[in-house]
């Protein structure tokens, strides 16, 4: 095992970690805002990947160019889910926490079935495109272009999220998170904030999905492969913390890659879970959790 291989693996893990981080960020945002863990988050990712595929097949648009389109589409879906389901779930008087968990669980099952109905259970992939089958070489280190691009785009998306948090809307989001019940007093329409929050949360996972579609296969159940890592990442980073999602995502990506390299590939997810357990024992709210 040479130093070059280790560096390559570390970089690969870092890039993958950025993707995990973006997926987790959407989840974290939604939770931080309204205490709802979206168990259909993986399926939102799956929808974004299918959207990328369908747009690519029918309009010939390369995934990179589709980013704004799919982001807007997923934003709309997020708002629709909030208005149609979550708002109702929040209004429930009993067992609110449990209702939220199971409503989004039911949604995830429904979406998998719908995807199978619409697209069939066959695997799809986008095998051509600007990023496909190309690699970047830096000396001995070779990295797939699609994954490098994914990592960079996710990082940019994070920057965008941070920028949003500095705007007036971002402050409204923060205020709503701090004190859900009092914001109405200062003229913030809570319902509108929640809607947009869901929209942004879904849009971020939409961006991650489009980038993943460039190099990963697409199927109705593909969401579950990433969902678990997303929940772990969010819990690790701390629910409601964007910084936490970023740090935790990178950490998860690195641990996964290094466990595969140094221990055994079949145990790489166990490595992630082990880190998660260790961190949570020491800090039950996660690395940067506030709530």
């Amino acid at each position, binding site marked *: 095992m040479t130093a070059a291989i280790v560096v390559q693996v570390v970089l690969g893990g870092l890039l993958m970690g950025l993707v995990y981080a973006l997926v987790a960020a959407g989840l974290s945002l939604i939770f931080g805002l309204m205490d709802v863990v979206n168990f259909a988050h993986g399926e939102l990712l799956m929808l974004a990947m299918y959207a990328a595929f369908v747009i690519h097949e029918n309009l010939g648009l390369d995934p990179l160019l589709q980013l704004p389109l799919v982001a807007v589409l997923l934003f709309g879906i997020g708002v629709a889910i909030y208005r149609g389901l979550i708002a109702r779930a929040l209004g429930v008087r009993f067992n609110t926490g449990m209702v939220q968990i199971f*409503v989004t669980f039911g949604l995830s099952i429904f979406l998998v079935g719908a995807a199978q109905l619409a697209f069939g259970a066959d695997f799809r992939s986008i095998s051509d495109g600007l990023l496909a089958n190309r690699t970047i070489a830096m000396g001995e280190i070779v990295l797939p272009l699609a994954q490098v691009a994914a990592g960079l785009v996710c990082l940019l998306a994070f920057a965008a999220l941070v920028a949003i948090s500095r705007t007036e809307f971002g402050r409204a989001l923060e205020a709503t998170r701090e004190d859900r019940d009092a914001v109405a007093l200062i003229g913030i329409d809570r319902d509108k904030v929640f809607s947009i929050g869901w929209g942004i949360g879904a849009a971020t996972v939409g961006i991650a999905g489009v980038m993943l579609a460039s190099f990963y296969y697409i199927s109705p159940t593909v969401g579950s492969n990433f969902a*678990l890592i997303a929940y772990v990442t969010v819990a690790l980073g701390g629910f409601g913390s964007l910084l936490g999602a970023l740090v935790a995502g990178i950490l998860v990506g690195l641990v996964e890659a290094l466990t595969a390299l140094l221990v055994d590939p079949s145990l790489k997810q166990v490595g992630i879970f082990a880190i998660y357990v260790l961190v949570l024992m020491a800090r039950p709210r996660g690395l940067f959790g506030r709530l």
Partner: protein
Amino acid sequence: MRANAITRRRRRELIGGGVLLILLALLPLPIANVYLRGLIVLTLLYAGLSQGWNILGGYCGQISLGHALYFGIGAYASAILFTRYGVPPTLGIFAGGALGALAALLVGWPCFRLSGHYYAIATLVVGMMVLLLVQNWGFVNAAMGITIPFRMQSWEDLEFRVAVLPFHYVMLAYAAIVWLIAWVVEGSRWGFIWRAVKDDVAAAESLAVRVFPSKMAAAAISGGITAVGGGLYAQYIGFIDPDSGLGLSLSVLIALPAVVGGVGTLWGPLLGAAVLIPVQQLSVAWLGGAGNGVDLMIYGALIMALALARPQGLVSLFGIRSQAGGEAVDRA
């Protein structure tokens, strides 16, 4: 006055339970259809499993999304003891139950200090971790699972060639005993503490010291019950592997009847199982051939609709209120 009302209610529940037991015991007799009998057996199994989950998730308020862990432990323990060491399952399931209880304590010890959603995700992660480890563990035959072949008819070994009726009574006994345990827990001091903790933050803080041991006890009971159910399942189906014994969908299926039927109630898990299990199995039989995902859409839509329309569970249709306890308020 209130105490008398409670005692009257509890007595009514016990009588109701007894009547239901008799009805369920007679139920399969006029039904000659093997498939329907099998459906009832599975429904009873899940009624018991979900009731076991309910003790921790409903009464105690700790929503576990990793209960398949205990199911798997019980199934594997019983299967391995039987196929490799000749221990009859009638004993093996209890050994499995003990292991399940132990596992629940080990998981509960660090995890109970996590609140709400953190706890749910932690249980989910622990469950997945064990699944991955088992898939790579040669002692339990890794991914290939354990097969329990049929050798000869025996009540001691819970082996019946094609007869479903014996398993009906075994599962009925399981569900009935679990129900009884839940009834006892509901009326116990623990149940009182959990309800007090849920409604009143100050009480939660002052009772915090006493709550932890009671949660551990609930976990152990819940884990043990689930493991026994797993052992019974292994004997009924004759096969267990990581996917069918430890998977996330199984964890959800264990929790769902209680959620749909009504958490923190005695009848919720039964009602939920009676609705969900037939829907799940029959949708395969009727729609399965189509293979196009419609069955999943129906299942998912059903869960969403029930969760939203009846958050207190289907039992609320009968005017039964939850005795749920647990975490002091959902939001700050």
